């Protein structure tokens, strides 16, 4: 049994730091603000590491602390469930968050919203910890909404920029669609199981499946469990930027770069993957939901990779890469390789956070320029950033022995091993071709930034320099993560064990034996460490890097020629498959039109003109003007009215008898 005080301290420390710095930030100096928040998050990371070692030793925790809401049989407790799945998330969140806190000290130095920023990111750490540590769907929902709120606040952090405000609103509104689905799922869980508690709910799932309840929804007949899983997955699609709800994620790059690294790459956007893995005892019983997860994940992985090929904004390339990699994780969940999904989530958190922070370091050096066309030849000026970003790029491309290779390879093999008909074949094609594209766009970005020709603007040149230690040290820490977590996961933690119950995850993930792709893989035979040389992903990654080298290492005319040769395709993906335009035409303009109509006709014409000036108020006003004339101010008029009144009353009383 784990110490509950220690467990409570892990989310409580960032919360307290966030409140103190948020409420009293106006009175605190920069140094005090970042000391309080960074210290509490680092302490929280150390505690998480301690809990992690205890869980490795076989400890776990399950219990309620307080009752949050109580209404007859509707009980919402606040509790925690600490198992292998939870601790790996806790460790990832707090470690990346600590690195980002330290990095931010250098990156946001001198910003007028300095302490506000620190308050937000500590608050985010708290919310994310609540999300992963809770033991019921309601605390999950609380964390889910809280991270969404902080994400909104941080995308719009520079609130004087119009584009930042638009991006924040877009993220919020798109997430609303997903969160609605999620809420429907949570309420359906209450309806069918009468509990929000993970253990209660998961224990009842087989009974519900055996009972064979079905319901009609929008004209489809589906089983109750499929309905619940699909609703929850809609929430995951919104939060994790899956097609068609991915449009907010690239725009969220309007926020400061540390936020892109922490929230929009490493942690918050992976909440959907975590949720699906947590609910594996439910998803396992719904083939339809699993197929939907695979399909959406595969489409996202492939489509966002194509968009990443042509983007010119350094952060947007990485953002589309994040969408694409999240697609990989969902594909892994869908083929029941939850352990591979969480493994990729962890390695991705390190190398993608590193990629973003390194990009931030570059942006910092070239005076807030984000356009790849205005960079180049930066490697000599910024050696540390160069090396760390190279590590991250190799990890993202899936080159052994870097972290991304281990997890991505596992996912691809799992997809290949699982028989899912047409959807499975499509997913296999998508993840394989996305490997090539991932390697290509990553190194395209890398070469354009650090090699190629020097295209830095003349007035920026003297400013180019390596970032201070407070920025480079977090990069180095994360580089260690991007180097080692993959090998550590497979060899140290035994994450890839096909018999999940015997591997790292133990009973925290649930896979039906009937469709365990890792088991199928294992039955095909034991592979040696050199196995990757014989598989397609490795050579696809190498050829992707090779093509990027040929096209972008030195300045060539190949990119321009290629773009001209495939103009329609190039324009199509350069415009991000016209998703924004589609939503603008089908949702945004009609909604704005409706709003304008209600404003002009409903508010101005009907209420203001019709009711206020013409109807009720107009009538009252006219009546009042007449009544006003009766108030002459002469005493004898009032006396006369009184006497008349008395006579009238008396006459009435006398006549009535």
């Amino acid at each position, binding site marked *: 049994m784990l110490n509950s005080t220690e467990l409570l301290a892990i989310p409580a420390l960032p919360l307290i730091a966030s409140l103190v710095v948020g409420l009293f930030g106006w009175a605190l100096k920069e140094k005090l603000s970042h000391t309080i928040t960074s210290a509490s998050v680092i302490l929280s990371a150390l505690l998480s590491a301690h809990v992690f070692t205890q869980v490795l030793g076989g400890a776990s925790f399950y219990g309620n602390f307080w009752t949050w809401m109580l209404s007859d049989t509707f009980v919402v407790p606040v509790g925690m469930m600490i198992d292998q799945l939870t601790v790996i998330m806790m460790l990832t969140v707090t470690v990346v968050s600590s690195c980002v806190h330290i990095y931010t000290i250098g990156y946001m130095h001198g910003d007028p919203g300095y302490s506000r920023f620190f308050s937000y990111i500590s608050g985010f750490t708290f919310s994310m910890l609540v999300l992963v540590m809770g033991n019921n769907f309601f605390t999950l929902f609380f964390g889910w909404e809280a991270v969404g709120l902080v994400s909104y606040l941080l995308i719009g952090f520079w609130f004087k920029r119009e584009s930042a405000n638009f991006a924040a609103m877009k993220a919020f509104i798109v997430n609303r669609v997903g969160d609605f689905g999620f809420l429907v799922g949570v309420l359906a869980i209450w309806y069918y199981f009468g509990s929000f508690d993970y253990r209660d709910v998961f224990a009842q799932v087989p009974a519900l499946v055996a009972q064979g309840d079905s319901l009609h929804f929008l004209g489809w007949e589906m089983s109750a469990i499929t309905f619940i899983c699909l609703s929850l997955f809609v929430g995951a699609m919104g939060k994790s930027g899956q097609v068609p709800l991915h449009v907010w994620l690239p725009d969220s790059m309007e926020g400061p770069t540390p936020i892109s690294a922490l929230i929009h790459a490493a942690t918050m956007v992976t909440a959907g993957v975590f949720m699906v893995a947590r609910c594996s005892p439910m998803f396992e019983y719904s083939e339809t939901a699993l197929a939907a997860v695979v399909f959406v994940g595969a489409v996202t992985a492939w489509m966002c990779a194509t968009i990443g090929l042509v983007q010119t904004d350094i952060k947007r390339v990485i953002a589309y890469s994040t969408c694409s990699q999240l697609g990989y994780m969902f594909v892994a969940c869908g083929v029941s390789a939850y352990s591979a999904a969480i493994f990729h989530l962890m390695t991705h958190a390190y190398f993608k956070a590193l990629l973003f922070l390194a990009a931030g370091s570059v942006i910092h050096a070239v005076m807030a320029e984000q356009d790849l066309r205005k960079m180049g030849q930066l490697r000599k000026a910024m050696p540390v950033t160069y090396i760390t970003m190279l590590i991250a790029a190799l990890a993202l491309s899936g080159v052994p022995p870097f972290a991304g290779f281990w997890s991505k390879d596992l996912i691809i093999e799992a997809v290949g091993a699982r028989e899912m008909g047409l959807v499975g074949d499509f997913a296999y094609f998508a993840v394989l071709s996305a490997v090539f594209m991932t390697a290509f766009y990553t190194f395209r970005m890398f070469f354009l930034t650090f090699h190629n020709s020097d295209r830095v603007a003349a007035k920026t040149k003297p400013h180019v320099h390596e970032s201070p230690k407070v920025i480079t040290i977090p990069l180095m820490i994360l580089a260690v993560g991007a180097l080692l977590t993959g090998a550590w996961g497979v060899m140290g933690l035994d994450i890839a064990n096909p018999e999940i119950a015997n591997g790292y995850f133990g009973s925290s993930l649930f896979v039906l034996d009937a469709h365990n792709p890792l088991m199928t893989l294992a039955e095909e035979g034991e592979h040696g460490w050199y196995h990757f040389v014989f598989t397609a992903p490795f050579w696809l990654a190498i050829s992707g890097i090779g093509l990027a080298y040929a096209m972008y290492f030195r300045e060539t005319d190949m990119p321009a020629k290629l773009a001209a040769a495939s103009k329609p395709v190039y324009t199509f993906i350069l415009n991000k498959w016209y998703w924004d335009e589609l939503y603008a035409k089908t949702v945004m303009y009609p909604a704005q039109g409706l709003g304008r109509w209600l404003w002009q006709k409903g508010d101005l014409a009907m209420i203001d003109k019709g009711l206020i000036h013409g109807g009720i108020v107009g009538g009252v006003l006219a009546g009042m003007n007449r009544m006003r004339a009766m*108030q*002459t*101010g*002469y005493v004898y008029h009032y006396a*006369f009215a009184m006497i008349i009144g008395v006579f009238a009353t008396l006459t009435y009383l006398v006549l009535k008898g």
Partner: protein
Amino acid sequence: MVPLSAYLAVAACLFSIGIVGLFLNRKNVLIILMCIELILLSVNINLAAFSHFLQDISGQIFIFFVLTVAASEVAVGLAILVAYYRNRRSINVDDINTLQG
């Protein structure tokens, strides 16, 4: 023996004079005060007459209350009048209409 109706007739006359005085007077606020006194006195006569004919002393006791009220009303009224005159240099009824709507 004077009959009750004679008392009531006198009281009614006094009352009517008071009322008419209230309305017809457009000049002087003092006259309004005097008219109110007349109305109250007519009521007093009624009270005394009924008290006598019904052999009930409470009517006469009531007269004292009415007299007291009338006296204090005059005191307050005159005080207001004096204050008003100081401000406006006039106690013309037609001038006192600042409360009109």
